[in-house]
């Protein structure tokens, strides 16, 4: 039941952002990309979802742009 609720919540969220014309927001694009990992076969889906939403670079940035995180890497 717990997973069912979350799956429907994600579906409703994607419907909502589409109705609002926000489906091109980089966070929504990243979320859709991450969702592709849910139906893969290897049993490390959570790790791959997290990695797909992560900053893949390795060098420190010059200056912190603020304090918060958005949930997806903006590129």
């Amino acid at each position: 039941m717990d997973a069912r609720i979350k799956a429907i919540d994600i579906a409703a969220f994607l419907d909502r952002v589409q109705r609002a014309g926000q489906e091109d927001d980089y966070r929504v694009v990243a979320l859709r990309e991450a969702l592709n990992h849910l139906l893969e076969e290897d049993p490390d889906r959570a790790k791959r979802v997290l990695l797909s939403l992560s900053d893949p670079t390795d060098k420190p940035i010059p200056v912190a742009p603020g304090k918060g995180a958005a949930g997806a890497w903006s590129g």
Partner: protein
Amino acid sequence: MRYIEPHAHMVSRTTDDYEKLITAGCEAVCEPAFWAGFDRASVEGFRDYYLQLTEYEPARAAKFGLPHYTWICLNPKEAEDLALAKDVLDIIPEFLDKPNVLGVGEIGLNKNSRNELEVLERHIEIAANRDELILVHTPHLEDKRKGTKLIIDALLNNPKVRPERVIIDHVEEHTIQLAMDKGFWAGMTLYPESKCTPARAVDMLELYGTNRIWMNCACDWGISDPLAVPKAIVEMRRRGHDQNVIDKVVYQNPHSFMSQCPKFQL
């Protein structure tokens, strides 16, 4: 059931949360220094905060018979101002000798900037030169993987750092192995919205084992749950984990790590 809450920001919590903790079986609470939700303007603001952590908060916890320990540092969210950071770093050693201070923490990175990294390296140097325990904060969400790698590199670059005296906190599925493979301890933070849920934390215990790992609630002024660890205990019981295994994760492990500081006495 007895447990230790190894990471809770009690200065942000109401007094009835102490009552909830002891009712749930908490036998000690440990409070790393953190960001207050706004930037402090001067070194005196930090001095007041460190006094709160080392004098006022242990007295508040003592009213409930709960031992209170703390960690001292400048949080990475306030590390961009290098001049202020240097002033704050200068007063940190005077607080490290206080009777309830276990070490330097929670240090680390937030947005993975150059200044944050420089301040992190200075904290590591202070801790390593005094052979203090280190509690590491890893960044949030999209910044966690990169930040965890940068932090581990910075720790290993200091030859005086002993990984068994460092806990890397807020690990998730994509960073837990980075910490544990290098011999560090790992902390899993149970948050309602970010970090990990009790179910995911128990998944990681089943996948990576119960050595050198703990769970914490990291409750603070945001959406957070001071009873998250007892809820993870319920999840472990539901899955049939032995009481001795649960006790190891929620009591013996934090006890073992923090007992490396002789000031930690239960």
